[in-house]
């Protein structure tokens, strides 16, 4: 595959791994957080963690859209599907996220709810057009990457006068979450951050400067391919060793300093920032989520179905998703990892999405655990 194989070259990978080993100083421990779930997945899938020296540790961050979705928000979607007889359209990853009372969208579907998996927000609009007598709700989740497509379909729905389409908006922002990670009391001391790939194509590399300057935290924006990641880790090590704290961009083939202006303008036209939004693991964070502007209120499912009221629901008692999302614990540190909580029967959200830290470790890495559970 042209333009893909080049970024997965085994010889180059070995050279990069050797450079990383050379750059790392034996007297130092480098704790680097990959913010984004896509990076967590790539590190595990390509077996990169085992190629790093022992003193270069990757800490998994909260950048997995499904993982940070609190139970209460999934409950809203389930209630819409079960009690309001809507066609609920969702990305596939959300279907198995555990909600209250051992429900999930997938279980709601088995009970007769009309839940449909879509690959794009556009498919939800298509379903609404094809079913004019039914209310169709798109369960919108994700960081800045998936927000522009949602904005685009809302605008399209308004232009075409679509009356039976609305969006349950759960879009969140990257920078407030990064800030929360770096300011939490008792958090893990980090030496550097791997910046997200796709998010950065939209917001650009400039916004991260507030983080590097405020927290003196090196950031390297990285692509999702394995060579991207190894290169970004090497760049972070160099920053740490040279005492620099800058925003560096490894993913120059897609990320510019200013980002995608057109997408930003579109998002700004449709959405505004919520006063606060609840995140799984990080709690309620100010100005960290988006809601639909008043001019597009008719497409806001939370207004169209007024009895839909958000309730905060605590996570399962034994579930460590919160601490794992904050980088304080590793998946294998959780008591129920791989026993009670597995991808087939997830208790916490980090075990659901392939980008979740627990799912990635369970699927690709658990053979290295001393427990050796099957």
């Amino acid at each position, binding site marked *: *595959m042209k333009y893909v194989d080049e970024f997965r070259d085994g010889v180059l990978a070995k050279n990069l791994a050797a450079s990383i080993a050379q750059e790392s100083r034996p007297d130092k421990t480098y704790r680097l957080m990959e913010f984004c779930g896509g990076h967590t997945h790539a590190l*595990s899938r390509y077996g990169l963690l085992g*190629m790093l020296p022992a003193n270069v540790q990757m800490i998994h961050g909260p950048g997995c859209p499904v993982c940070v979705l609190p139970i209460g928000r999934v409950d809203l979607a389930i209630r819409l599907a079960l009690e309001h007889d809507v066609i609920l359209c969702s990305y596939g990853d959300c279907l198995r996220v555990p909600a209250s009372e051992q429900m999930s969208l997938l279980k709601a579907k088995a009970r007769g709810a009309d839940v449909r998996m879509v690959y794009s927000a556009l498919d939800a609009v298509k379903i609404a057009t094809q079913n004019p007598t039914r209310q169709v709700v798109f369960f919108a989740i994700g960081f800045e990457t998936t927000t522009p497509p949602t904005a685009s379909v809302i605008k399209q729905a308004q232009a075409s006068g679509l009356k039976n389409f609305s969006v349950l908006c759960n879009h969140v922002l990257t920078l407030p979450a990064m800030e929360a990670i770096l300011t939490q009391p008792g958090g893990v001391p980090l030496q550097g951050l791997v910046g997200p790939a796709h998010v950065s194509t939209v917001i650009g590399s400039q916004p991260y400067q507030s983080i590097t300057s405020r927290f003196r935290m090196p950031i390297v924006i990285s692509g999702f391919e394995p060579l991207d990641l190894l290169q970004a880790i090497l760049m972070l090590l160099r920053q740490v060793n040279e005492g620099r704290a800058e925003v560096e961009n490894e993913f120059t083939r897609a990320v510019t300093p200013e980002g995608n202006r057109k997408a930003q303008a579109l998002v700004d036209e449709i959405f505004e920032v919520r006063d606060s939004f609840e995140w799984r693991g990080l709690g309620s964070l100010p100005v960290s989520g988006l809601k639909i502007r008043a001019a597009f209120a008719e497409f806001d499912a939370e207004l169209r179905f007024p009895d839909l009221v958000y309730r905060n629901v605590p996570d399962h008692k034994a579930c460590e998703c919160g601490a794992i999302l904050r980088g304080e614990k590793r998946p294998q540190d959780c008591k129920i990892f791989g026993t009670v909580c597995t991808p*087939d029967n997830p208790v916490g959200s980090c075990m659901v999405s392939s980008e979740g830290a627990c799912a990635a470790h369970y699927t690709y890495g658990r053979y290295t655990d001393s427990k*050796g559970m*099957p």
Partner: protein
Amino acid sequence: MSKTKSIYVRPLDIKQGRVDMSHGSGGRASAQLIETVFTAALDNEYLRQGNDGAVLPLPPAGSRLVMSTDGHVVSPLFFPGGNIGSLSVHGTVNDLAMMGARPLWLSASFILEEGLPLADLLRIVDSMARAAKTAGVVIVTGDTKVVERGKGDGVYISTTGVGYVQGTTNPSGNRARAGDTILLSGTIGDHGMAIMSQREGLQFESAIESDSAALHGLVAAMLATGADIRVLRDPTRGGLATTLNEIARQSGMGMVIDEAGIPVNKAVAAACEFLGLDPLYVANEGKLIAICAAADAAMLLAAMRAHPLGQSAAEIGAVIEDASCFVQMKTKLGGRRMVDWLNGDQLPRIC
């Protein structure tokens, strides 16, 4: 067929006609459908008798009977490289072949949905007949039921097969031993991606064809080498990854496979990349995994490569001691990770 005067006033309208409830009533319409569509295409001495079952000769003395069954619910019914008819023959023939058996007879049970175009049904049955003839098996008995519109998906086909195995041949999922070699008969993911390319909402243009094929000829060539084939299995649903995990668990062993050694067609790799799928988990309908002692591997691999269905056969890894029964993989990149069971449903309704 019989020389008695036809009891049907009008012939079945194959071009425009559709299956209706009367075709499953057991009355004259059922009989007409069976005669015109099924018996005509699948014609053989057993079906021709029109009895409730087939009376069959015993296999050679000293051999053992093997029986297997498989249901087919693939959607769409027609896909590049085959259709539900050919698939339903290959599926059961391959299940028998994976026991080291020579397949002889099949039964076929059809659940038809009201409204299915008769022309589609005929195409499917014709393709079954061709697949059975090529594979040298005979469909000796069958059944047809009709369900109301909306309660089926065009047609479901269940086939059951009987064959026999001779001598000491005894491939079984629990016989893999540490040090054994794992062989794969060709590229992975072709069937699943051929289906995926036709799915509503996902249609993409590709030249990917299903690998659906009967494997007992390849198996016979492998058995003829005299190698002790410890395990034979076709990696269908769940793909190579899931099948290796099944074998590892049955045998109480671990495995280490080498990503660079696993053949994948370029178009399949590209389509998987595009859809975010892993070819290791995508279904195959014409491939097999064989596990044998390391000393036999070269001879067995040569026999596989000499057969048309095993031309790109490859050695992909080895069996190791591991009480946790983990399947590990050396990645192309030089890293290592494990290859777990398929989780959830990557692609529903593929066979």
